[in-house]
């Protein structure tokens, strides 16, 4: 019966607020002012049995545009780090919180096409300056030597396209090189145009995931070995397949589950696996928001760009430590009593001074990710805490339970206290929650966020709010707690969190939001993850080995 709670989390798409404004209730015009409804406690949906899960049907296969980070790593892999430093990729357009989903669903804009072209020539020139000898393995007999150009092309095209090049493609790109070399009477100019062209080809810019018929199942398609190699490699290292993986793809080494597991485990030993994890969690935890976070300078004079960068780094280091450097139970991310600080953060937290990044015990009252300055600063206003943002983050990002929209035409303002009365933020929010139209949703967010009222909007400890002692008691559904440490423990032991994590990591690997019909394989992944003692690397390997990762259906 241990799997029941996980199943519940998989199937609970939305937090149950009150009925007045969920779903499409107000599809009429003029906008409906929500009718006050008697607030009702959130009642759990009856837990479905695993056998009630729908039969497994994989997701449609679609071409996926490289994300900006994947574009840069692909150029680095193909042409060297100098070329990758010369480019400024078009910005990602995340959808459903992930750049990979934007890349799998959106169209490339005209301005991005222009950026790709500009970047292609910059990368080509930088590569030829830094690595000509590697790129040109032959001595051209003439300035437009077609044989030598053909050798340059065949080495580059297959790697750039992440699959064997066709003869047509080789001829096409060789002649681009030869023509340019002839026009300039310079062999290297030809190589420049050849490289610049490959970097603009859809075969480079998209992970083509078309698949081939699945002999075992007429309803499904399987990714080809080359497609699977790319999916695996970008998932686990955010970079294109290395030589060993390409060899495996060519030799049938990815045709069975054992082969995939072996390659996945090997890839996870590479340093790029840590980068891939960082890229994913920067998005999942919205850490990229720290790059442009402002705080009120009167209230928080010590908050600046540099400390925001340190906050991001603290969280990244903790995650990588638990997943790779000292692999442990990944649930401890939520409850660990150690963290990483640099000098500025040590001062910020009131810890003994350090001179370099150091693992330290956290001060009393803190435990895990949600008591780090990154989360606490991000999920706040510039001048004040936001228990609502903090609670919403826990619901949406950690429990996979989206919160419905606030009702239209309702003032979201917090009522003013009577003159000369003090009120903590919590007391103001509680007044707010008394309004029936607000209560339904705020009731599932704010009592979670109250756990963190002992920290201010930059994550420093605070005992008072508006001169009054803070109250950090709250509840998550029916479970009550006092303070962030208790809440952290409660969340650590909540199986919904790891189930939600598994879904989000799966989304990153496959470029789509998991479908209802993928719940069965995802449940198996979650169970195997739990059985391993929640080792993050096991989660990655289990996802990679899952049928849902390797198969698909034809897109409409």
């Amino acid at each position, binding site marked *: 019966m241990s799997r029941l709670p996980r199943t519940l989390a998989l199937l609970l*798409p939305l937090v149950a607020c009150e009925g007045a404004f969920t779903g*499409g209730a107000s599809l009429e015009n003029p906008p409906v002012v929500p009718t006050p409804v008697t607030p009702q406690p959130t009642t759990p949906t009856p837990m479905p049995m695993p056998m009630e899960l729908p039969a497994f049907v994989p997701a449609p296969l679609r071409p996926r545009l490289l994300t900006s980070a994947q574009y840069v790593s692909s150029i680095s892999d193909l042409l060297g780090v100098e070329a990758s430093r010369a480019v400024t990729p078009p910005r990602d357009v995340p959808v459903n919180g992930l750049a990979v989903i934007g890349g799998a669903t959106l169209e490339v804009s*005209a301005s991005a096409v222009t950026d790709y072209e500009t970047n292609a020539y910059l990368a080509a020139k930088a590569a030829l300056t830094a690595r000509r000898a590697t790129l040109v393995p032959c001595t051209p007999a003439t300035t437009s030597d077609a044989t030598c150009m053909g050798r340059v092309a065949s080495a580059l095209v297959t790697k750039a396209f992440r699959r064997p090049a066709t003869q047509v493609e080789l001829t096409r790109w060789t002649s681009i090189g030869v023509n340019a070399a002839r026009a300039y009477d310079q062999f290297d100019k030809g190589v420049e145009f050849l490289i610049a062209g490959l970097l603009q080809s859809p075969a480079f810019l998209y992970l083509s995931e078309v698949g081939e018929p699945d002999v075992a199942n007429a309803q499904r398609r399987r990714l080809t070995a080359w497609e699977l190699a790319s999916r695996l490699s970008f998932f686990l290292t955010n970079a294109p397949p290395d030589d060993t993986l390409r060899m495996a793809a060519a030799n049938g080494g990815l045709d069975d589950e054992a082969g995939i597991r072996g390659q996945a485990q090997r890839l996870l030993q590479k340093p790029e696996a840590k980068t891939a994890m960082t890229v994913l969690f920067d998005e999942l935890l919205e850490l990229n928001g720290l790059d442009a976070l*402002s705080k009120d300078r009167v209230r928080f004079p010590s908050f600046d760009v540099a400390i925001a960068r340190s906050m991001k780094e603290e969280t990244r280091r903790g995650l990588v430590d638990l997943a790779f450097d000292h692999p442990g139970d990944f649930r401890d991310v939520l409850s660990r009593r150690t963290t990483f600080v640099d000098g500025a953060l040590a001062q910020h937290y009131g810890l003994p001074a350090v001179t370099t990044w150091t693992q330290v015990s956290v001060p009393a009252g803190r435990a895990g990710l949600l008591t780090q300055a990154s989360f606490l600063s991000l999920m706040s206003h510039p001048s004040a805490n936001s228990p609502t943002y903090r609670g919403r983050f826990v619901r949406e990002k950690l429990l996979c339970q989206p919160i419905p929209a*606030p009702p239209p035409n309702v003032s979201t303002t917090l009522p003013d206290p009577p003159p000369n009365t003090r009120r903590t933020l919590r007391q103001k929010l509680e007044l707010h929650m008394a309004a029936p139209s607000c209560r339904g949703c705020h009731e599932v967010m704010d009592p979670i966020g109250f756990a963190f009222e002992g920290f201010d909007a930059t994550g420093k400890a605070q005992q008072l709010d508006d001169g009054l002692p803070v109250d950090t008691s709250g509840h998550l559904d029916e479970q009550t707690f006092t303070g962030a440490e208790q809440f952290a423990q409660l969340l650590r032991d909540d199986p919904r969190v790891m189930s939600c994590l598994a879904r989000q990591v799966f989304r990153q690997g496959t470029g789509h939001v998991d479908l209802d019909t993928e719940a069965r394989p995802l449940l198996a992944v979650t169970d195997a993850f739990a059985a391993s003692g929640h080792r993050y690397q096991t989660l990655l390997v289990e996802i990679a080995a899952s049928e849902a990762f390797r198969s698909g259906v034809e897109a409409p």
Partner: protein
Amino acid sequence: MTFRLSRRRLLRGAGALIALPTLDAMLDGNGAFADGMPPPRRFVTWFFGNGVIRSRWTPTQIGTTYVPSQQLAPLVDAARNIDVRSYVSVVSGFNVKTPNLRGHHNGAAALLSGAPFIPLAPNGAGYNSKFGMMSIDQVAADQIAGTTRFKSLQLAVSKRYTTGEGPTLANMSHRGPDSPMPQEVNPARLFNTLFSGFTPRDPRDPRDQLRASVLDAVKDDATALKSQLGARDKARLDAHLTGVSELRTRILALPPVITSSCSVPTAPTQTNTDSGGIEPIEQVSTLMSDLLAMAFACDLTRVASFQFSGSVGGHCFKFLTPTEARDTEHSITHEATQQDKVHAAVVFTMKNFAYTLQALKRTVDSPTSNVLDNAVVLCTSDVAEGLDHSINDYPVLLAGKGSGALRSGYHFRSTNGRNTSDILLTCMRALGTNAASVGKDQGLSTTPISELLV
């Protein structure tokens, strides 16, 4: 020397390598267009996030004698040499008719496209949405862009626009539901994009022809992939290839021609980089406005979207510091006690809007007109008021004269809550198109505002 060359006529031969004819031959005695073509009409959608305070926004007077309200006061500012009141029509009393399923998303999609947005919230992913159809600037671009180098421009000032809720809040311009168009936030880069083509090239350099042939090969590569895709992804790849074709045309086009109204401005060094966590909003807005005005005068483009501040954006306006507590504009809109700051933010926004208009106004377009005379500028937001996410009595300004087609300096108020999409259709008509409708579903409009069309 005062002359003006019809670049439009020249550029129609884009791709062909033709010699420049004698300039004098193309001018008539008065320095007007030799071919008698009037200056083209331009369209700008100018957007700011989080609404206004209507009681301080809407002028009391109706008609030509309206006096700018507190929030519209920056339209006349003698100290800054700004006077654009006579170019601005206020449109009030209009309501968004598409269902208000999500604050900000609904208003942004309705005012920029006339269609309901499409929610994207499957299976426990956070709330996201996309546009329901092409945005109005792109509808206009398809009709009026002609053979300009850039079919349209997408500009943004604040970088703190919301990217976590999907394309509806992140982007103003959309070619379709799956085709948001990214904004340029960096004035120095914008300058390079717009004006690098003015640098004369050595005609013996084969570079551009080779770049074009590379793009042909790119298209050929796409053919094999396309044949394996379903209809939806074929369309995605086609959109990509359309961008490739546009780039190819631009590469082979003749360099733009310097004339009395079109000149290459000084290259800005401003890159829109924060200083101490503060964005250089006013400096960037000013430069973007100047560059846009010259892009129009040089006929590099005829359509632009200008995202001053984002929907639910995290922008903080510097004028609230250092003595006052500073919060993001979005969060203060939700506080009843902070409405004076919201007001200050709207006034600041209008100050910047007035500058954009003034930049267009002072840019000569022909001997008898400036760029603003020939432009239609739609200025609006993603909610009517941020405090309550309301979408009725929406704040909208229509500026410019549309080459005489748009009534300016007028306050038109609907007394029966007309559809905001009527305003979009009015823009389309003022741009000289015969568009029969804009938007769809509850947002559909077939009725332009006749009082504002001349």
